[in-house]
């Protein structure tokens, strides 16, 4: 089973590497969205410092969501997905591996880029760690929950926007906890509660969403 997972992750990473521009555009989107807010609300430093966690998290949400379309589309188009459904490997393992690969390429880089955005917003120095940790815990959850939506909207017209409508309400707890952790730390109240809850969400998502993703794929591919 582990061999299958490793193979799937390797394959997806290789494919993503060959389409570097697709990956890069999603990350660029993250940066652009975060840059829009000061243009909209004004560059007053105190304001920016207070909205920074929320803005960065919303940008992460949107960027993660945009990249979800890629998760199953290519495999669906060339028939690989059908083979995965018919194959001997448990579908849950396969989709978990695909979600992991997706996160490595679309979520983990956000953790690396976020500090630079935080710099733009003049976030207090002590909060960088909490921000990175909250994103590290939260972005995998976004990938996992988003994969359910991607599987349900496979091949549909208007898929991208529909995916957004379906998945964003489900993203709300992650957003609240992630941004909240940074804000709590900023207020000197300690982010442990939020971070632990994020961890709990991650465990729940990792345990249950593979089943849901597999079920959704079977429904979409009948």
């Amino acid at each position, binding site marked *: 089973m582990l061999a299958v997972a490793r193979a799937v992750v390797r394959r997806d990473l290789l494919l993503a590497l060959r389409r570097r521009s697709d990956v890069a555009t999603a990350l660029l989107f993250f940066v652009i969205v975060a840059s829009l807010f000061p243009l909209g609300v004004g560059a007053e430093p105190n304001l920016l410092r207070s909205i920074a966690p929320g803005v960065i998290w919303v940008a992460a949400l949107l960027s993660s969501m945009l990249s979800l379309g890629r998760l199953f589309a290519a495999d669906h188009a060339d028939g690989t997905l059908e083979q995965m459904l018919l194959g001997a490997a448990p579908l849950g393992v396969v989709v978990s591996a695909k979600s992991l690969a997706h996160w490595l390429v679309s979520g983990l880089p956000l953790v690396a880029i976020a500090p630079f955005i935080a710099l733009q917003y003049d976030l207090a120095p002590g909060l960088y760690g909490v921000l990175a940790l909250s994103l590290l815990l939260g972005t995998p959850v976004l990938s996992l929950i988003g994969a359910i939506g991607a599987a349900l909207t496979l091949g549909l017209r208007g898929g991208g926007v529909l995916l957004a*409508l379906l998945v964003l309400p489900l993203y709300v*707890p992650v957003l*609240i*906890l992630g941004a*909240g952790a940074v804000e709590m730390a900023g207020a000197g109240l300690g982010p442990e509660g939020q971070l632990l809850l994020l961890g709990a969400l991650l465990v729940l998502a990792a345990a249950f969403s593979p089943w849901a993703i597999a079920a959704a794929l079977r*429904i979409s591919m009948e």
Partner: protein
Amino acid sequence: MDSSIRWFWFASPQTFFPLAGTIARWCAAGAALLAVAGLYVGLVVAPTDAQQGEVYRIIFIHVPAAWMSMFIYLVMAGWAAVGLAFNTRLSFMLAQALAPTGALFTFIALWTGSLWGRPTWGTYWVWDARLTSELILLFLYLGFMALHAAIDEPRRADRASALLAIVGAVNVPIIYYSVQWWNTLHQGASVSITRAPSMAAIMLTGMLLMALAFWLYSIAAVLVRVRCMIRERV
């Protein structure tokens, strides 16, 4: 086995159709009676509130509508689960039929909550825990209906939206509690719009009557809708 045959007797659209009609008629009548009773208690019998004056009477619509919006979502997810488990088409139809009524009550809860907020707290929108959760619930309903509408093939549409409903239902408590926490963090000690003045028994009676009226109305409306769907699809 004999018992299992009886369980699925009404799972056939043909046998369910007349039953639905009968139940719908009785529930419609009951809803009308209970609504009259509830409105009488709410608008005539219940006394003027010391702090909020007459405006608090919106509670007799707002709270029952909010209850119904959440209850209907759970029932919808329940029928979705039954449909996925037993592969009964009627279960999926019921889930589909529940969505518009549920969304309507969510809208009513939001609308009345907004109008209650304006005279009491000064703004038409208050980011308090219940209203924000209701807003997200509305998005969940709309997403459910949008997904079903976006898929042409009926079987895939039924099953996909059913799975979405179940995933949503699992998330609703998580969403509710995270929004609750978010609300306390950002509002501090300010009073919640939804914390009504300490419930006098008469106010509770009014709310319960209206809730029951809404419940019977929902059953009637949903069953009529299912009958339409049966006619259209069979």
